[in-house]
């Protein structure tokens, strides 16, 4: 299968690889996919509770080149955005940007899911924190 130049670029030079402290109340973690399916993405974001701006994003991905590229791109895109702006990112935007072929669309869906899961986790943490007060 021929990969688009952008997929190869992200695969060779993935952006924002790494992990953020899971316990940090301002960090949301999204872990989506399954090893049996050949794709697992972990996307983490550090979100400023005052401004709702995503200040940092990190990822780790088990999956094909397109899955790695999709999650790498996702971290690039969410950084500096507000939570609402990040939630507006659609998988089709990722497909377009990376020129993913139809068989790789699920990689982009997974990246969108990872963004939503990470933000969901952060919101849950915040909610629980407020209750505790």
């Amino acid at each position, binding site marked *: 299968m021929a990969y688009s130049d952008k997929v190869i670029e992200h695969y060779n030079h993935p952006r924002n690889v790494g992990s953020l402290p899971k316990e940090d109340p301002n960090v949301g973690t999204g872990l989506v996919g399954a090893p*049996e399916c050949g794709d697992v993405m972990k996307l983490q974001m550090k979100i400023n509770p005052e401004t709702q701006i995503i200040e940092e994003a990190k990822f780790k991905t088990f*999956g094909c080149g397109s899955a790695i590229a999709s999650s790498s791109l996702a971290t690039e895109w969410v950084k500096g955005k507000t939570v609402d702006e990040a939630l507006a990112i659609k998988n089709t935007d990722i497909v377009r940007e990376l020129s993913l072929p139809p068989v790789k669309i699920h990689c982009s869906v*997974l990246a969108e899911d990872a963004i939503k899961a990470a933000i969901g986790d952060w919101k849950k943490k915040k909610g629980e924190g407020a209750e505790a007060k």
Partner: protein
Amino acid sequence: MAIKTPIYMDYHATTPVDPRVLEAMLPYFTKIFGNAASRNHSFGWEAEEAVENGRAQIARLINATPKEIVFTSGATESNNLALKGAAEMYREKGNHIITQVTEHKAVLDTCKRLEKYGYEVTYLPVEKDGRINLDDLRRAITPKTIIISIMYANNEIGVVQPIPEIGKIAKEKGVLFHVDGVQATGKIPVDVQGDNIDMLSISGHKIYGPKGVGALYVRRRNPRVQLSAIIDGGGHERGMRSGTLNVTGIVGLGKACEICQQEMPTESVRMLALRTRLQKGLEAKLDEVYINGSMEHRLPNNLNMSFAFVEGESLLMGINDVAVSSGSACTSATLEPSYVLKALGVGEDLAHTSIRFGLGRFNTEEEVDYVTSRMVEVVSRLRELSPLYEMAKEGIDISKMQWGATAGSH
């Protein structure tokens, strides 16, 4: 000496034509171009002589007689002819066929087609090591069983089935024994007499011969196997396979068999040494690598290994100057991971991380070392990227986690 890339290490998929084979073939394209079925002039006679020479070379490699060799377009056709031809011919005797789950699709899909025509097929499971259990086989045989079809060696994991033992059982029970010998023939000793094989499929391009030519050994004595043709026409090959003979291809296949026979004792030792070097090199530098299938009963040129926590397609993308293949779903047309590894009980998570190395005649130690270092480099890099590797290092058992696979097609 500098390594020339890309490096080819996918010899189970296909092999280059050996230059000696090519040399033998060349005159038959332009000078000796006759139709082997032309009985009335020297052009035809010369072509026929070349065909008969090829037949004899193939027969010698597998301890058969030349008359028992039927030429085909390749092993897919040979498998189709053996199964469909015998199924039709022996329909009165019974309608039951026994095969096993890790066969090549050319056998499995032919069996599926025969099921549509009213035949019953038993697909034997394999043990963890990739071999069938002989008691399972004995139990599966019924008075209606007409064919047992078991491959000599598997194309993904190189595991060699207990062919002499199966042949003995088939003979005792009076059931025809077909063997897909594509991967084994020319690599390890295959003896249709000693192994009690009644039909054996052979392919040219897996043994340094050309593509588009193959053969089917069809036993003529004890018992005399008869097949209904699946291609009708001029009645070539004793009526079993019509169509003008591919003389150049047959010359090439014959020469390829001759070379394999002469060089097998040294070549198989050299393959085993390269394979061991590759395996040891990888195991020395990488943790969490697992070999798929038996190491004891295995072709000397095959290594199939899972590199846990690293998905196969991304691995292939990283070692793009090395040609190997993967059992990962993402590299297959169906988006399913390897059915062969699944049959061995390899978890789907590990099946996605498997790489098949197929060593061959033109690989060198330097190439093996290069591939080893590239593999180590890419696996290490991708593990740094893998959330599963991180979790495993933290002591989390990923097999016990609840995975919510939300996305897409799986």
